[in-house]
């Protein structure tokens, strides 16, 4: 097993898939000559050429719309939206086209399409450039939403996303690119819609994903020093949502904390908590806690921004609340 960064893992998945299948191509703003805003596609343009690594105008609707159209012809586009904040300009095409076409035309249309994008705050980019609106996208049947938290999952899930015949929104996190982790050698995939226990424990279940996996892991390490063993379930995909490992863990620990970076209202935590209450109410020994972003547009000032984002201490406090 090699230890590589998240950036390398995503880049490797893309590269290996493009080597495997000539029908895969990349399109997006600054993916080519520039090498990718987050340097994920560095070197791709020189190796694969302008036909397969396509710089687009700054026009999010047509980036997603044209990727949908191209997918309908049997190519396998990987469209990049520079950040998820700009996905709102393409919302119509994500929601009203990508998520609907297969169903609405009675199964005739296939959309082997991936939309890669970048979510998350914490870099002092202000309110318009720091959002974590992942939950919004998980609202729509017909779309798959993937958001890995480790290099191993990032690589395996991106390969599955590219090989899927459904539209997949693949969400990277802006502050995870340097995170290192072990990645299996050779070609492997990780199925979409399968949650995973990333840390075993007996006392409390922490449900999380993406960047907040890292935060939750740190909290679990500190809690362990106090003799509290948290089990961490990483959702990895928001739709389809795999509640299996979450329910199994909750039935064992009888206590749950859900940690997400986005806003609390109508969020991932709301959904997971509701599902736990619906499906395992009798197992609850304490009200489920949610850790999430404060309900404010994210401010620029570093101290204020960090106050708004969920911290390790918030997770620890929530765990102590349910114990």
């Amino acid at each position: 097993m090699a230890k590589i960064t998240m950036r390398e893992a995503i880049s490797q998945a893309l590269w290996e898939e493009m080597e495997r299948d000539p029908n895969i191509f990349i399109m997006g703003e600054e993916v080519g000559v520039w090498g990718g805003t987050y340097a994920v596609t560095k070197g791709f343009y020189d190796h694969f050429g302008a036909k397969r690594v396509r710089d687009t105008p700054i026009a999010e609707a047509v980036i997603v719309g044209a990727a949908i159209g191209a997918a309908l012809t049997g190519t396998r586009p990987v469209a990049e939206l520079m950040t998820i904040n700009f996905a709102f300009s393409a919302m119509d095409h994500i929601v009203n086209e990508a998520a609907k076409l297969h169903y609405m035309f009675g199964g005739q249309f296939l959309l082997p399409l991936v939309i890669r994008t970048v979510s998350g705050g914490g870099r002092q980019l202000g309110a318009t450039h720091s959002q974590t609106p992942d939950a919004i996208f998980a609202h729509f049947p017909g779309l798959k939403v993937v958001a890995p938290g480790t290099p191993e999952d990032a690589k395996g899930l991106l390969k599955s996303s590219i090989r899927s015949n459904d539209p997949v929104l693949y969400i990277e996190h802006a502050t995870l690119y340097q995170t290192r982790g072990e990645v299996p050698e050779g070609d492997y995939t990780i199925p979409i819609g399968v949650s995973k226990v990333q840390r075993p424990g007996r006392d409390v279940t922490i449900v999380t994903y993406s960047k907040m996996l890292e935060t939750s892991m740190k909290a679990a390490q500190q809690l362990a020093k106090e003799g509290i063993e948290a089990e961490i379930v990483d959702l990895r995909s928001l739709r389809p949502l795999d509640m299996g490992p979450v329910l199994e863990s909750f039935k064992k620990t009888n206590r749950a904390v859900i940690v997400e970076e986005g806003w609390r209202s109508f969020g991932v935590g709301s959904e997971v908590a509701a599902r736990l209450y619906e499906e395992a109410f009798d197992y609850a020994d304490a009200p489920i806690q949610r850790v999430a972003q404060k309900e404010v547009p994210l401010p620029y000032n570093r101290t204020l921004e960090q106050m708004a984002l969920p911290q390790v201490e918030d997770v620890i406090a929530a765990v102590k609340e349910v114990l």
Partner: protein
Amino acid sequence: MEKEEYLDLYYQMVLIRRVEEAAAQLYQQGKIGGFLHLYIGQEAVSTGLISARQPQDRVITAYRDHGVAINCGIPAQKVMAELLGKATGVSKGKGGSMHMADVNKNFWGGHAIVGAHLPLAAGLALGDQYLGNDAITICMFGDGATNIGYFHEALNLSKVWNLPVLWVCENNQYGMGTAVERASAVSEIRQKAEGYCIPNDCVDGMDVLKVRQAAEEAIRFVRQNNGPFFLEIETYRFRGHSMGDPERYRKPEEVKKWEENDPIGIYRNQIINLQIASEEELDLLEKKAEKETAEAVQFAENSPEPPPEALFEHIYADAQ
């Protein structure tokens, strides 16, 4: 064109008219739900246009799609069954009036968000260009659609990447109740294509032969140059925007004036004057269209509803 083809164009136009008249009745009887946007008055546009395509050429349009579907070769039965929401409908009863498509006929829908299918059309053309296919994409949209951002993003990309796409604006003078001059900074819509250096043309959409000729030239241009072309087609819808339109935005005299230019009547006269066929031959075709329409209605009414399992079918293509 051979005689047969002249008559085929006539038949298609008449069939669309009869099918939509029947649809209007079924709507009034409550057998068709949702919105119903009739194409009556505009039949020469898609009939002339689509008759000029090769089988490998793709067609994509907006929600005013029944006529386009028929021109693409979808049987009237499957169109009617879709209107009635039946399992035998072209979209299995899950799309309805605004969302018809048939991949096997290279008809890619039926899209109900104004202008949103233009980026998809750019993508269909991109896919063909990428794969080296000798196919073009014909994308139809209304005058109203030229005011939404998608139009501009799609036209720009088509020129920057030289995509094999034919942009066809059906200028029927109104977007719902808003006249072109009240919504568009330029009322000669082809000027918008000029802004993107896309070669363009404008043609009378009440004359199917003129549409056909302009379409042939435009399609040839796109295929040969592997780049976009823009065709504005002037037309008029005789009925309301959709069923139940109070039509406060236009005067009955205006509608009457256009109705005197009925594309089917114009074409009928042309066929007679050019001595391509006799009145009797055309009457026979009218009868045939009536019969096909009646059979389509019967087929649709007798078709089964989609089974309950259909509700959860086709959300995803991958095995779950």
